[in-house]
């Protein structure tokens, strides 16, 4: 998962967890097949049926603001999203994404340099992002090492199963 390649879907600023997965669904089920049908419903109804496995979201600032619901990164991952790149993230969403194995990348410039439908290649380890259409390569600050360890294990559950303890213990 260290090098990702996928097609881009763009969203603006302040994409809240209520837009990613409205709260009303999460009280009834934890079945991700069911919940993922509503991924990004508030921002783009029908998104779940358009998205393909490996696609990448590129968004503005404060992505994932609002609730602590882990269902938000989970439905994106389950719908096929391979990574989210945003100008900035709400902190709980960022931690949740790492914990469930969804790469999240902070980049102030990606939003303006990437168009919807572009195919991009992301090198998580080295912090490089290549836009195929323009050939432009953008740099970003790689995910900190100890979070990368959780992410590369596939999230916190797999991390614990593999190592028998948490990285901070």
């Amino acid at each position, binding site marked *: 998962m260290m090098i990702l390649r996928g097609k881009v879907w763009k969203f603006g600023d302040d994409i809240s967890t*209520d837009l990613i997965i409205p709260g009303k669904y999460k009280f009834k089920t934890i079945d991700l097949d069911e919940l993922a049908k509503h991924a990004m*419903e508030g921002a783009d109804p029908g998104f779940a049926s358009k998205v393909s496995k490996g696609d990448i979201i590129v968004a503005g600032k404060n992505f994932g603001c609002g609730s602590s619901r*882990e269902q938000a990164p989970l439905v994106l991952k389950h719908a096929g999203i391979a990574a989210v790149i945003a100008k900035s993230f709400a902190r709980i969403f960022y*931690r949740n994404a790492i914990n469930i194995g969804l790469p999240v990348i902070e980049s102030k410039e990606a939003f303006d340099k990437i168009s919807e439908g572009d195919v991009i290649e992301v090198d998580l380890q080295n912090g490089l992002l290549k836009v195929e259409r323009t050939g432009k390569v953008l740099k970003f600050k790689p995910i900190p090492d100890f979070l990368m360890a959780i992410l590369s294990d596939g999230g*916190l*559950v797999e991390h614990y199963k593999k190592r028998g*303890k948490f990285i901070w213990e």
Partner: protein
Amino acid sequence: MGMTLAEKILSAKAGKSVSPGDIIAVPIDAAMAHDGTAPLMIKSFESMGAKRVWNPSRAVLVIDHVTPSPNEGSSSLHKMMRDFAKKHGLILLENEGICHQVMPERGYVWPGAIIVGADSHTCTYGAFGAFATGIGSTEMAAVFASGKLWFKVPESLKIKVEGSYPEYVSSKDVVLHVIGEIGADGATYMAVEYVGEAVKQLSIDGRMVLTNMAVEMGAKTGLIAPDEKTMAFLRGRIPSDVDVKAFEGDNDAHYADELHVDVSSLDPQVALPHSVDNVKSVREVEGTPINQVFIGSCTNGRVEDLEVVARILRGEKVKVRTIVIPASREVYLKALRIGLIEMLVEAGCVIAPPGCGPCAGGHLGIPSPGDKVLSTTNRNFKGRMGTSDAEIYLASPAVAAATALKGEITDPRRLK
């Protein structure tokens, strides 16, 4: 150099002096998950193969978001929580009220404690001088298993609130005003520390509003230094063997920024759809027709809130659907005993059982498409209350009561 309140709490727990940016692992004093987040937490806990909960007397499950259950799906998730609580000997609070109200009421919050909750408004407990923040379900499973968690020590933002509150201006107006000024991401990853005379003047009910909404400016937590009011509230609630540490931020501590609010000249504030930082003075939006008013939530469902509403509605009749939900059984009982519930019912309000109600879109007052709702809650994102085509305005209980009387957004100061 001195330390901020957040740095002092984290340093005491880490056993060393910490600074912003440090990554530390600290023991957790209490942990909470509710019916919107506990089911996934349980799934992760079991998938990890974790066997035991680190401390069953400090791990709390609360059923509050959709209770009594409105459908079979929710009932199944509630059962999953009851079964897990029984298996591990955990505390389960069902139909007792909103997690952020019952956690302090039941003595799981004290000055100097580190508390995590699988809910973004866990930052509310900072009103008691605890370092408290929201986390997700899988991370909560890790806390339930290990009793520890990592944190990045946050920078602190000082918000100094001065002056004295004019009639019908409250801490809700202060926090809405601040969010309007700095934006929904204006304090991302920071600890917001509220200081000043107009913070000290507030009751515990009023202080909890300030810390509750810290997350709406992106903060990791909101904090208020404890004082005699804090201890008066906690006495008889917290266990006698807990390590209460009443810190306050030092004058020479480093703050990332410092904001000042003078409440003496503040108008009641309203956050317009669809973002919490879209804030205006009530005077600018007066006359906006409203279809439903909701008074309740972990932000404004406490006795002091119901008091101001009852004072405005007494002897009058509401013009629109008005739902009132006391934040907890304790709040409900007190409001009953002092006659507030009777006044509200006579005025035409409907009282629903303690819990989150329509705030998170689960039940008990989901707006119709096209409705405009005025709510005392903390979020007005599109779809928040369960209907994507509804508009939510956020305001104080006083503005909500005045609006309920007139059927349009109304400045409570103009009712006389």
